[in-house]
């Protein structure tokens, strides 16, 4: 860690202790703001947003489906980048972040798939459709499951972290290729279906609650990630003086 061009917080972040205390301070804020926005977005989306002229009220699933899909993807990116930082700078906290993110990402992908499938029933008349978005989300879930399986198969914590980081990075390179190929494959096989979410221009009263939900879920899952991260820090740093002090009293 010789290079000095990185900002100071980056190095502070490398310290599990600092990370533990800063997340402890952030958690109440994330919980309060995330919870508030979540309730606002939920009520707004479910009760106040106008219904879609084509799909009716089943359209309201968008306020859950789209945010979870976005989050599932950005969590994968977060996992891969954290893994890369762990590999390059040997930063323990980055490894822990990557490990705590994976199950949440998988849960998000499952949720995105489930809501997509439920939405598909009234829209397309069947629970599952090999639509481009759903298919690439399914592959993303597979990628998450692979990372988690590899992580749990390797006993040594540090080896597991490094191996999963390599796998996550390989997956990250592949995601755009998978997305492109699936989209292309989809247009080849089912040319005439209308897309589940892509509307030419969504009116503001429709996309505003969506935006609120996206931010709310970022905060809520950020909160979940911090909770997991703190557990991970405690377990991995169990012999550190500060942990003993913290728990000993």
């Amino acid at each position, binding site marked *: 860690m010789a290079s000095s061009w990185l900002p100071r917080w980056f190095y502070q972040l490398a*310290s599990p*202790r600092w990370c533990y205390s800063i997340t402890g301070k952030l958690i109440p804020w994330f919980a309060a703001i995330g919870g508030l926005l979540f309730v606002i977005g939920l009520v707004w989306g479910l009760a106040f947003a106008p219904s879609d002229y084509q799909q009716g009220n089943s359209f309201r699933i968008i306020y859950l489906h789209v945010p979870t899909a976005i989050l599932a993807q950005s969590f994968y990116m977060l996992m891969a980048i954290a893994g890369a930082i762990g590999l390059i700078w040997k930063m323990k906290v980055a490894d822990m972040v990557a490990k705590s993110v994976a199950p949440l990402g998988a849960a998000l992908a499952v949720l995105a798939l489930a809501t997509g499938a439920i939405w598909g029933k009234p829209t397309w008349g069947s629970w599952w459709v090999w639509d481009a978005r759903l298919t690439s989300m399914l592959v993303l879930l597979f990628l998450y499951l692979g990372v988690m399986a590899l992580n749990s198969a390797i006993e*040594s914590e540090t*080896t597991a972290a490094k191996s999963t980081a390599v796998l996550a990075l390989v997956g990250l390179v592949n995601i755009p290729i998978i997305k492109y190929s699936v989209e292309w494959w989809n247009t080849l096989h089912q040319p005439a279906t209308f897309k589940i979410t892509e509307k030419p221009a969504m009116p503001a009263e429709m996309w505003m609650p969506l935006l609120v939900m996206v931010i709310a879920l970022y905060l809520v899952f950020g909160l979940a990630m911090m909770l997991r991260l703190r557990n991970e820090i405690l377990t991995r740093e169990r*012999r*550190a*003086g500060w942990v003993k002090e913290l728990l000993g009293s």
Partner: protein
Amino acid sequence: MAQALLTAQSLFCERDDRILFDQLQLTVSEGEIWQVEGRNGSGKTTLLSILCGLSSHYEGELYWRGEPMDEVREQFLSELLYIGHQTGVSAMLTAEENLHWQCALHPSLDASRAQQALESVGLKGFEDVPAHQLSAGQKRRIALAKLYMSRAKLWILDEPFTAIDKIGVAAKEALMVEHIRAGGSVIMTTHQDLSAEIPLHTINVEHFASSQREWS
């Protein structure tokens, strides 16, 4: 004054919640043979694999000829001969084929001496027998033949004498003495008692097992 080849500073390693060693210092200079001591499971093999750069499960610094290891790794590898617990001999290849590939991997091995080396370890006539048809001792001798071909400065040998008879051990000892006279050095672990004539430095891993380390 002999030049320091490999220097390890404040090495720390833990496995499975157990500290194998901490604050371990070691300087191996030209013309020295170091024997790493310790009971089974005390971390001898781990230390050797850290020293040769196979394992990255450690904290601390390594230097090769005074330079940080990360910066001169390639140089270090080109001057290193390592024979591990697993000897790197493929069972489905003959002795000759095995050595041939090893020579391609390690330019410090002199391929033209392969025949002679195999003869020296007593494998003359077995050159083209697949290794899986040989005994354990013979298989190990294929790996040990590399000692006769090596131009490397530093030899790191993990239990090289397992399944080797007394005469064989004596021959390798003589070879090591010759190697250090020429300015090389050796780091090894062994259960066998080496002959008293060898100038031996020892380091016991267990002496570093108790740690006052404050976990950060």
